[in-house]
C-alpha cells in the first residue's frame, strides 16, 4: 500500500509538470492578449506596450515558463495580472466554497442514488424500478443551468423557503445549510442518476450470484442478504463511479457557481480565462488536476479496504 502511494505520488508530480507546461503554452498560443483585455477597447498601442512590460509578457515564453515553474516549486503560484493578488491566496479563499458544494452534492447524489439503485434492483421491473430508471435518465439529461434556474424560481422566488444564492454563511450554520441545498441538488442530480444506474446494474449482477442463493437457502434474513452479503460486493463499481464523479464535481462546479452566485474556484477559473489572467488560469487548472488525481488515488485505496481480493502489492 505504501508502495502504491509513493508510486502514485511520483506519477502525480510528473503529471502536474506536464499539465502545467500544456496549460502555460496553450494560454500563450491561444488568441487574445492579456494587455488588450486589461486595456480594453480604448487602449492605445503605447498603453498596451506599457502593460505588457509591466506584466513581463514581452520576454520569451520559455523564460516566462521557467520563472513560473521555479515559483510553483517554492509554493508560489504567481500574481494575478488583473489585480496583482497572490494566486495562492485567491484560490485558498475560494476553494472552501467549491469543496463544500462538491461534498454536499456528493452527499445528495449518494443518498439518492445508492438507495434508489438498490431498491430498483431488488424490485426489478416494478413500478418503482421503472420510474426510478426514467427519472435517472432525465436526471442525466437535464442541463445544470436550467435545473438551477427552475429550483430558484420554485423554492426561492415562489415558495421563499431557501435563499437564491451565495454561500456566504459557514456551512455548519442553519443559514449555511439552507444556502447549500439548492446548489447541491442542482450539481448532484446528474451524479445521483449515474450512481443509481450503476448501483442497480451492479446489484442485479450480485443478487444472481451463487453465494447469495446459498445465503438465502441457509435461511439468512432477506435484509441481511441484501445489506450485508450483496451490498458490499455490489459497491465496488459504485465506488469507482462515485470517485470519478467526485473528481468531476470538483472541477465541474462552474455552471452551478455561476447560477447560484457562489464564489468558488470554478468561477475564478472562468473569469480568469475570459480576462486572459494566465497565472490564475494556470493555478486553478493545476488545483483541479491535482484534486482529480488524488481522489482517484483514494478510490484505489478504498477498493483494497472494501475488497480483500484486491491487492496492489
Amino acid at each position, binding site marked *: 500500500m505504501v508502495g502504491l502511494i509513493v508510486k502514485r505520488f511520483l506519477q502525480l508530480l510528473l503529471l502536474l509538470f506536464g499539465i502545467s507546461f500544456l496549460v502555460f503554452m496553450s494560454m500563450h498560443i491561444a488568441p487574445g492578449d492579456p494587455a488588450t483585455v486589461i486595456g480594453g477597447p480604448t487602449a492605445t498601442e503605447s498603453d498596451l506596450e506599457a502593460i505588457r512590460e509591466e506584466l513581463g509578457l514581452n520576454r520569451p515564453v520559455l523564460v516566462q515558463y521557467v520563472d513560473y515553474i521555479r515559483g510553483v516549486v517554492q509554493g508560489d503560484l504567481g500574481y494575478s495580472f488583473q489585480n496583482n493578488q497572490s494566486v495562492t491566496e485567491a484560490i485558498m479563499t475560494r476553494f472552501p466554497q467549491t469543496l463544500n458544494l462538491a461534498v454536499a452534492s456528493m452527499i445528495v447524489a449518494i443518498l439518492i442514488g445508492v438507495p434508489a439503485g438498490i431498491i430498483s434492483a431488488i424490485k426489478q421491473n416494478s413500478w418503482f424500478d421503472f420510474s426510478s430508471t426514467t427519472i435517472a435518465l432525465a436526471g442525466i439529461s437535464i442541463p445544470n443551468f436550467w435545473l438551477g434556474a427552475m429550483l430558484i424560481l420554485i423554492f426561492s422566488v415562489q415558495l421563499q423557503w431557501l435563499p437564491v444564492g451565495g454561500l456566504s454563511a459557514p456551512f455548519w450554520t442553519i443559514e449555511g*445549510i439552507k444556502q447549500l441545498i439548492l446548489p447541491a441538488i442542482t450539481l448532484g442530480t446528474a451524479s445521483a442518476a449515474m450512481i443509481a444506474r450503476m448501483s442497480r446494474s451492479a446489484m442485479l449482477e450480485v443478487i444472481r450470484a451463487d453465494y447469495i442463493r446459498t445465503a438465502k437457502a441457509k435461511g439468512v434474513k432477506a435484509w441481511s442478504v441484501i445489506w450485508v452479503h450483496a451490498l458490499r460486493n455490489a459497491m465496488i463499481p459504485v465506488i469507482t463511479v462515485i470517485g470519478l464523479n467526485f473528481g468531476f464535481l470538483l472541477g465541474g462546479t462552474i455552471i452551478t457557481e455561476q447560477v447560484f452566485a457562489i464564489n468558488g474556484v470554478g468561477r475564478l477559473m472562468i473569469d480568469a480565462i475570459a480576462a486572459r489572467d494566465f497565472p490564475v488560469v494556470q493555478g486553478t487548472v493545476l488545483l483541479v488536476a491535482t484534486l482529480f488525481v488524488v481522489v482517484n488515488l483514494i478510490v484505489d485505496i478504498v477498493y483494497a479496504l472494501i475488497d480483500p481480493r484486491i491487492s496492489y502489492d
Partner: protein
Amino acid sequence: MRKQSVQWFVFILLAIVTLAGCSSDASESGSDSGSGVSQELTYATTSDVVGLSPIDTNDSVSSAVIEQVYETLFVRDPETMEIKPRLAESYETPDDTTWVIKLKEGIKFHDGTPFNAEAVKYTFDQFMSEERAAPRASLLEPVESVEVRDEYTVVIKTKEPYGPLLAALSHTNASIVSPKADKGGDLNQNPVGTGPFVFEEWVQGSHVTLSKNEDYWQGAPQLEKVTMKVVPEYSTAVSMMQTGEVQFIDAIPTEQLPRIESLKDVEVQKREGTPVYYLGFNMNKEPFNDINFRKAVSHAINREAYVKQLNGLGTKNESIIGPKVFGYDKGASDAGYSYDPEKAKQIIEENGFEGQQITLLAANRESYMKMAEIVQAQLSEVGLNVEIETMEWGTFLDTTAEGNFQMTFLGWSNSTADGSELLYPNLHSDNIGSSNRMGYNNSEFDKLVDQSRVTVDQEVRKQKLMEANLMAIKDAVWIPMHHGVVTAAYNKSVKGLQIDPTGQWSLYNVHIE
C-alpha cells in the same frame, strides 16, 4: 451499515424539512435609522470589480464603486450635460495651454489626509507616469505638467491647446486619490478618496461593502451601508430582486426587461444614454473600402425594425455622435444612408457586388450576436452573401485590433460624453493599429478632430465636431445601429436614485423609505 444509513437518511430528511420551515426573514437585520427603515442597499453586478484604484482600472463595474468612494475635480451635470466644478472651486485659462484650477478648501480624504493641490499633482503625476501604466493614461496624454501654485491652486500645462481637458478631468478614472494611501498601500485593495462612502471590505469574487462617510464635505449621505454583490447570472440577480436579497440592478439586458417590468415592487428607470453601437467596415479590405459598398449596406439595413425589437432599450439615430454627447447636432440624426432596399439593390447591381461573400464578425456578448443575425438577414435580401463568425471577447479584441475582419459590431460608452473622446480614439488616423479598429484614414476628418481637441473655446469645438461627425456619417465608415438607453431597476422603497446618460449613478442622494 444498515442502521447507519437509515439514521443518516432520516437525519437529512428531518434537516431539510426543518430548514424549509424556517423563514428566510430571520437572517435579515440591519442598522436602523430614525425612521425604523434599514438604510442598507445591496446591488448586484454580473462581474466583480477589477480593482478599486481609479488610476489602475478601466472597467464599468470598478468605476461604479469608485464613483461612490472618490471624486473628480469636475463633474458633468446629468441634466444639462454641462461640466461644473466638484472638488474644484473654479478655473481659468490665461492662455490656450494653461489651466489654473482653484480647489475647494477644508476637504479631507477618508484617511484624514487633507485634499489640496499636492494631492491633485500626485494623482495626475501617477496617472501619467509610464511606470504605472494606467490603462486610461491617454485621457491626460496632452498634459505636459501639473504644478502646485499654492495650497489650493494647481496649474495644468498642456503640450498644445487641449479642449476636452475638463471632460477628461470629469472622467471617473481621473478621480483624486489620497497620496498617503497610495504610497503606503495598494489603492486597488484599499481605496481612499473624498467621496460620500468609505470603503469597508472587498471579498474578491463575492462582494464589496461601503459605509457612510460621516464627515462628507457636502453632508453625510442617508444610506448607512452599501453592498455590491457579484451575481454572474442576470436572471439570478432578478430572482434576488424578487426575494429582496438585492434592491438594485443596472444595465438591464433586453431579454430580461419584460420579466423585470412585470414585477410589482420594482421600478424601472430608462434614460437616453451616451453609448453608441455600430456596424463598422474594415477600411483596408476590398470592397469594404469602397464608399458605394458601404452605402449599399447602409441602405439595406432597416434600423427602425432593428431598434423596435430592443424593447425600448435603444433609439435610432444615424448620427455617430449621439444626442447626449457633446458635439451632436440634430441635423445629423438622418444624415446617413437610410433604409431603402431598392436603392441598395441598385447600387449593388451597378457596382457588381451581387453575391459578394461577407464574413460578419460578432463578439459573443451583449447584443452583438442579435445584431449580426438581423443584419445578416437584411443583407441577404439585397443579394449579399453573409456568414456570421462569433468570437469570445478577448479573442475578438485582438483580432479586430490586428485588422483580421471584414465587418464587425462594436460599441463605445462615451463615458466622458465628449465627441472628441469618441472621434479621436476611434476614427483618427493617429490610432490606426490600436483603437481605430476600422483603419479609417481621412486627413480632412483628422484635421477637424484635431481642431476640436486643441481649441479651448467650447463653441468652436462643437462646430468642428459637428463637421467631423457629418463627414464620418457621409463616409459611412460606421453605421450606427442604435444609441443606448441606460437602465436601472430598483425596489420601490429605494428613493432618489438617478442614472446618468453615461450609465453611471451616485448613491449620495439615495435613501430607503
